């Protein structure tokens, strides 16, 4: 018995005997390393983007004309909006595959209202509300139904596409039936910068600021980083996940309305397959599918890069069949880089950790 009672008092476990100096100043190198890598990702995208555009310009001098830039920004704006919404969902460690379908049906809804003579503000609002409604259903199924996001939103992709086909049928809405003012807005802008791009940038900055600087915004990251810890921290997981989906849906709806302004054409196939481009943009932009990492700025840059590549290929007389292969390749590179960098960073942080053995 005596050996038992003596044990705890006299057990200087070896692990514990590694003395720690009394509170030296914190080592700030790990933080700087991580901050640097966070910025490096966005810087790398920018560098690739600039090189790509310059190389194309050298080959084809009309590419960076004012009209060329404008077209590029117009195409990027719509992808950017959807990518920003998707990024919020992905940050919570979920995914929304239905954004392409939602964009399509919202675009038709807006176009239908406009063709019927509705006020453009109301048409845009209706598209946003419709998108938000689908987002709400997604969010409720994912958070309350306990169904994996991939399955729920894949189902929603087909359901919405099906509804779209039934509703639209063989109809198409073209510029003839749309108010000229609306399509003019879609092409107009402040100098070479289109209104659509301004809207996209404003939305990106607003969402980015909200996610970075507000309690509820940080909770999206917390949920994606460790859902269990988030629950213990008293965060309302369901509320936030539903909010993320509503948000992604609303932005897809807005993108649909702007799609009408930009292309002045909608039919039942509008937005088909768009979800994959969106997810590529988000991942290339550094938002990890495993949650908790990345920013909407990165996602927006990713959208800009993918759009640029798709615009550059025709300018370089490369067949557009290469487009998808290159998008896919970029996606794989981005994921590979993420994995390697994440592993390196974690081990670098470990080595600096004073306790680790």
């Amino acid at each position, binding site marked *: 018995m005596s050996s038992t009672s003596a044990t705890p*008092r006299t057990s200087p476990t*070896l692990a514990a005997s590694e003395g720690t100096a009394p509170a030296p100043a914190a*080592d*700030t190198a790990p933080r700087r390393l991580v901050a640097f890598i966070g910025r490096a990702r966005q810087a790398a995208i920018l560098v690739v983007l600039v090189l790509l555009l310059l190389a194309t310009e050298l080959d084809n001098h009309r590419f960076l004309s004012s009209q060329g830039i404008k077209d590029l920004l117009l195409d990027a704006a719509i992808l950017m909006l959807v990518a920003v919404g998707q990024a919020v969902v992905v940050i919570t460690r979920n995914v929304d595959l239905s954004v392409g379908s939602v964009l399509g049906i919202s675009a038709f809804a807006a176009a239908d209202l406009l063709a019927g003579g509705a006020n453009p503000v109301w048409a845009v609002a209706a598209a946003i509300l419709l998108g938000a409604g689908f987002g709400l259903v997604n969010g409720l199924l994912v*958070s309350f139904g*306990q169904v994996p996001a991939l399955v729920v939103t894949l189902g929603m992709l087909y359901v919405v596409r099906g509804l779209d086909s039934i509703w639209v049928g063989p109809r198409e809405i073209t510029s003839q039936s749309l108010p000229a003012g609306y399509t003019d807005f879609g092409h107009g802008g402040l100098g070479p910068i289109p209104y659509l791009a301004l809207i996209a940038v404003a939305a990106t900055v607003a969402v980015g600021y909200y996610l970075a600087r507000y309690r509820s915004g940080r909770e999206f990251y917390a949920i994606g980083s460790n859902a269990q810890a988030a629950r213990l921290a*008293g965060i309302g997981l*369901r509320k936030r996940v539903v909010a993320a989906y509503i948000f992604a849906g609303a932005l897809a709806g807005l993108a649909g309305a702007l799609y009408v302004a930009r292309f002045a054409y909608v039919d039942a196939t509008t937005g088909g397959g768009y979800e994959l481009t969106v997810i590529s943009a988000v991942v290339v932009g550094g938002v990890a599918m495993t949650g*908790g990492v990345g920013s909407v700025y990165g996602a927006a840059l990713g959208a800009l890069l993918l759009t640029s590549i798709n615009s550059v290929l025709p300018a370089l007389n490369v067949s557009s069949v290469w487009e998808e292969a290159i998008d896919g390749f970029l996606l794989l590179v981005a994921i590979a880089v993420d994995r390697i960098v994440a592993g390196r960073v974690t081990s670098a942080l*470990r080595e600096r950790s004073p306790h680790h053995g």
Partner: protein
Amino acid sequence: MNDSTEVGHNAAGPEAVNPEAAAAVPPGSGPAAAATAPILALDAVSVSFGAVRALRSVSLALAPGSVHALAGENGAGKSTLVKVLAGVLRPDGGRVLVDGEPTVFHGPADARGAGIAVIYQEPTVFPHLSIAENIYMGRQPRASLRGLGLGRIDRTKVRRWTADLFARLGVALDPDQPARGLSIADQQMVEIAKALSFDARVLIMDEPTAALTPAEVDRLFAVARALKAQGAAILFISHRLDEIFDLCDTVTTLRDGGWIATEPVAGLGADDLVRRMVGRDLDSLYPKQDAQIGEVALDVRRLTREGVFTDVSFQVRRGEIVALAGLVGAGRTEVARAVFGIDRWDAGSVQVDGRTLRPGSPSAAMSAGLALVPEDRRAQGLVMMHSIERNSTLTGVRGLTRGGLVSRAAERSRAADWAARLELKYGRLSDAVATLSGGNQQKVVLGKWLSTAPKVLIVDEPTRGIDVGTKAQVHRLLSQLAADGVAVLMISSDLPEVLGMADRILVMHEGRLAAELPREGTTEEAVLAAATGARAASEPAAGRGPAGVAR
């Protein structure tokens, strides 16, 4: 997102309290005793997980300005009780009282709102977020509205408050560093800082010291005493009895989910406490039997893995228990992993029963008769969501197949056999391993490997985080295995365990074998000296490299 699984057993609900229980108000709730009226109390609380009754009508009262210890073996219900107090679990029966008022916690947020802060046994950090955010998530200080802050987070304040907390705890951590990559001890310090940041009236600490150094434990205790002086109620759980005697005023003992005793710590002996926890006198914690030492079973020669360990040579004979001691990070676990074939080695050889092992092949090691019980049972030893029977037979699936398929009946009977031999505490064999307590999980890992009938068993920290009762069982088992002719290599940081169980002690220091010490006459100081690289003058065997190792 699946709270429902946690509250799913909650058929009755806390409202379903019988009137007798309601009348049994905990002591000190009258106005005369207002000064010591408990802030937080449990009244006849019960919790069940399937067939396992984790808590049976347990009452507990936490008074202000007092540190209350919760003692009990693994599986006694301590962590379940903490989850009830934290609002994570809702009891099936009984009441939770805050300031004497019956209260229902619908989630952790409710408990926090009542001023209860919890440090969990397993740190729960957000790996991608900064340390400061980890501490203040959901409660970040906000910029004032007048300064056009519009409710946004005041990052400067978050950082400064975090730095202040760390200064109080004497920890050198950068508030802006992300939490990933932090050691368990640092994560624990983050958890402690988080709990402190609440200015809570009740602080619950579920084994906060398991990963901390003595200096950090001292600081934590200083902070706990300061909180106590300010009138907080503290609930403290630890397997280190000396910490209970050091810090606590009152101790409540649980055994098998039931309440055993609540008594003042003063005047209580460690023996008494252990007896209450275990329910019987322990014959001995270290029941080392004398075993017949046979021929060499494991022969490791000049094993080197660049940058990790160098020139490691040793032998383990049948019937022998050899301890591998050293500081954390000395390379002990890495040697074990290499011997078992998980990691490749750059030079050297490993022989089992005279047969040279193919490097980097765990399946070759297993078929040669090697078994490894890893240090981190959750990550490496168990499939947490699988059933007990599935886990305990994972390694022996070959012997259980009929025509290429795993026979469920054979699997079940083998698992039942091992469960009985290891005195496993469980509901049904088909329950997920995650529902077991830590000590019982360790038994499942042991059973899983023992069912392969190994010739050489490597155990890495076999009793870390395990209560005294289970510890003695594990020791008895290891001793029995050695007596049966198994060669046992035991990695351990617990010096009394090393000295109590081993026939020989190998000490590693910075990737090399620094010393080999005999069982007789070796002191904790001698092992420590070798482990820290200080050459102990009284130990002739203490030398670097293979020269100091007996052939």
